[in-house]
């Protein structure tokens, strides 16, 4: 018997359709929506400070930097694995002798007014960076440049007087438009408040002290960012900023360790926000005045290193949101020396070292002394930093345990820098550095950088380290540089010109409706143009004019 198969009957088809539709309706919509980013919505970012100048070569404060980073690109950038990749530059070539770098620009980068981004713009940017009449502080990174030549509209050749590895990082500086700025006085031009860039976002408006608004650039060379608007709200008080977070007033902010740990555990935050943590590229340290007779002996410095329980500080002040530091590099850096083991707190060993250096409690008053004078020093730190204040208090208490009397003084920043650091009128300071990804530490530890106002204010001078620092800058070979900087790391840890305390975590918090947000060593913002909010979760519907 032959039964002809005529396919599913109409009723069956309708049944299948109904089941499919029902399933689609019942399934959580996020499962369907997540796979396809949609444009729309706005992201509201909270900032303590207002921007001052929206031009890359003049932007010095972090707020200006945040905005400028979305409006302008550099020739190069770091990707999420901390590798240098092309941004405006499609490719680049470093010559064998390390003296020239040739960049080839991508063809489809355009300014927000439609003009193409060309090599002329790159040369113009360089000219202004080294122009003595422009108020830019960044000229020092370009001192070794001998010339910048435009070979053709898409090719730029930069020639250096000597090989300079940190140069690649210096070309992450935002490129500025020649055709709009060549007749302007860069210090006072209106452009600073109404910039025209080429980046993923376009400038819309700036209400001083209140708000900066940016809109997505539909012609951006990678792709149009999904989030339509970027609203930068200026909220100068930490407490208020946090309260705004509690009422969905802002979508993106940075948390303090206390906030991350204790104040953002409730169900409201869990529903509305996603928290991230990743190690920041900076460290907190105690710097010693190496000219001071108490600290010129390395044994004293090493003893203090052993007397301090860094993990307790991290647990107590950072609520565990950080890692012990053994040197100036975090673990994620390729220059980090993995063979160095952080010292645990060891009070007897510390006391033994101090005794070796001549410090024991001769008179039984509980404090160490030598030649009749007790071991007492003042630890200075700057006003306005809650975490540092608490760290200082903990250090004070811990060093009391070995008999060292520490006094704390908190000083307003400008006074601190001018009266105490620059003039070397300090015993020890508690500070932090935020470093660039390039491991060059010449400015911090080379013995020539000890003039008033320079950054080797501890006065570290080791001829071998000097040599290493000079060599590290002069070669582009990453393998060679890695060996050099690992050795620098080791030497610094032995000599302890700083007691490296910890690397704090960065703790951004983002509204939960945004997808594609990932914490990487470079941060969460590297793929900002890929963030999106599913249509049904978008909060801010209106597009700007």
């Amino acid at each position: 018997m032959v039964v002809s198969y005529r396919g599913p009957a109409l009723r069956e088809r309708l049944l299948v359709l109904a089941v499919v539709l029902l399933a689609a309706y019942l399934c959580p919509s996020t499962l369907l929506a997540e796979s396809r980013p949609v444009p729309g919505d706005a992201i509201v970012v909270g900032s303590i400070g207002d921007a001052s100048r929206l031009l890359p070569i003049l932007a010095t404060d972090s707020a200006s930097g945040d905005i400028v980073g979305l409006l302008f690109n550099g020739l190069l950038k770091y990707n999420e694995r901390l590798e240098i990749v092309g941004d405006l530059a499609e490719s680049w070539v470093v010559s064998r002798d390390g003296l020239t770098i040739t960049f080839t620009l991508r063809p489809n980068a355009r300014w927000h007014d439609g003009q193409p981004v060309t090599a002329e713009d790159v040369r113009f940017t360089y000219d202004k960076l080294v122009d003595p009449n422009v108020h830019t502080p960044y000229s020092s990174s370009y001192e070794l440049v001998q010339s910048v030549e435009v070979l053709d509209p898409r090719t730029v050749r930069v020639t250096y007087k000597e090989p300079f590895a940190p140069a690649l990082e210096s070309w992450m500086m935002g490129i500025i438009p020649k055709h709009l700025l060549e007749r302007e006085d860069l210090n006072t031009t209106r452009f600073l408040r109404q910039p025209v860039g080429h980046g993923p976002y376009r400038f819309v408006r700036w209400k001083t002290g209140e708000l900066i608004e940016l809109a997505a650039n539909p012609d951006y060379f990678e792709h149009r960012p999904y989030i339509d608007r970027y609203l930068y709200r200026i909220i100068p008080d930490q407490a208020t900023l946090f309260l705004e977070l509690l009422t969905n007033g802002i979508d993106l902010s940075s948390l303090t360790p206390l906030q991350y740990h204790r104040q953002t555990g409730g169900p409201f935050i869990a529903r509305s926000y996603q928290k991230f943590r990743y190690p920041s590229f900076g460290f907190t340290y105690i710097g010693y005045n190496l000219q001071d007779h108490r600290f010129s002996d390395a044994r004293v410095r090493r003893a203090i290193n052993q007397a301090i329980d860094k993990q307790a500080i991290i647990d107590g002040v950072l609520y565990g949101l950080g890692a012990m530091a053994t040197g100036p590099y975090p673990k994620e850096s390729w220059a980090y020396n993995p063979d160095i083991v952080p010292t645990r707190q060891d009070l007897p060993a510390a006391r033994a070292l101090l005794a070796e250096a001549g410090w024991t409690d001769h008179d039984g008053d509980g404090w160490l002394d030598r030649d009749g004078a007790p071991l007492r020093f003042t630890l200075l730190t700057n006003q306005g930093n809650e975490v540092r204040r608490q760290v200082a208090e903990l250090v004070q208490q811990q060093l009391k345990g070995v008999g060292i009397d520490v006094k704390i003084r908190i000083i307003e920043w400008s006074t601190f820098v001018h009266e105490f650091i620059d003039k070397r009128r300090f015993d020890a300071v508690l500070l932090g550095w935020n470093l660039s990804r390039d491991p060059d530490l010449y400015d911090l530890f080379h013995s020539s950088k000890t003039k008033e106002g320079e950054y080797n204010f501890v006065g570290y001078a080791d001829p071998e380290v000097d040599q290493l620092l000079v060599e590290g800058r002069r070669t582009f070979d990453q393998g060679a540089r890695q060996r050099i900087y690992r050795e620098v790391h080791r030497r610094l840890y032995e000599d302890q010109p700083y007691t490296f305390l910890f690397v704090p975590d960065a703790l951004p918090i983002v509204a939960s409706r945004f997808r594609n947000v990932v914490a990487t060593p470079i941060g969460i913002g590297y793929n900002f143009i890929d963030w999106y909010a599913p249509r049904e979760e978008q909060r801010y519907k209106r597009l700007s004019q």
Partner: protein
Amino acid sequence: MWSAECGVRSTGLSFPIPHSPFRIRDIVMASYLIRRVLGFVPVLFLITVISFGIMHLAPGKPTDAAMSFNPKVSLEARQRLEKLYGLDRPLHVQYAQWLSRTARVDFGRSFLDDRPVTEKIVERLPITLTINVCSLLLILGIAIPLGVTAAVRPGRWFDRVSTVFVFIGYSTPSFWLALFCIALFGVTLRWLPISGVHSLDYEAFGSVHRWLDMGWHLILPVGIAAFGGLAGISRFMRSSMVEVLQQDYIRTARAKGLPERRVLFHHGLRNGLLPVITILGLSVPDLIGGAVIAETIFSIPGMGRLFYEAVMARDYPVVMALVTIGGVLTMLGNFFADVAYAYADPRIRVGAAESR
């Protein structure tokens, strides 16, 4: 002060001046006032010198905040910038330059962002003025009735309670109160916004909606500012009214059988308000000043924050401009207060009444 500096003695000037447009009183007063105005000049000068000295002698440079401890910025770059801003020249030269520019009403450019100082001030003035004027009106609206009512029955229940109430306002640390109110009204109850002056969608609102939006945002800042300022005016109003109500002419009016209302408002209040008005003259300079803590907590871009941030960043042009303007306004306020005192002095009023 009045009697010592301008002695209107009844034994002087006995010759007649027929048909003179100016009475003796006016001439004497005018010369007094002119002397006062001339006295302002050295004070203003001294104010600017002292402020200039303080700013420059305080350690720190405008280039610090962003540029020190930024490893990308070398010492040479910082020094070059200082030279560009003229900070390396000797103090008296810098002051002379500032003075000559200010005389032409050119306040120079801010060090923070190179914008004209005038522009920065004008940008922030409206919101500060709005808050201060609203707050003042609120204070007057509450304090005057409060003071009058307390004065009518001194020592009784209302007087005591209202006194304690205004004093609580005066004694509360405003920043503490601000944080609490925000936490209560903004977070817990969600009745009021937490910070800012406008909502995010402000640009898309119609004009009525815009006014309402701003008003909604200003409820807490104005309210808290007013709460702190009630004590001064209400106590002053009270003591002024108490004194006025003890005067003879009040008793006369009452004896004449006038209704209490008329006695109070027509005779009492008119005279009782006079000292309060002179006090208001003295608070004119405060109208352009902002409370920096309140502005920080409420994220209001006002004059207080402008000043505080300028001081901390050693933004000399902005600081000097604000101090100078503040000084001029204080002088003006004092001047008007003196004029008001002069006209309010009973001796003059009585003299005027007699010559009528």
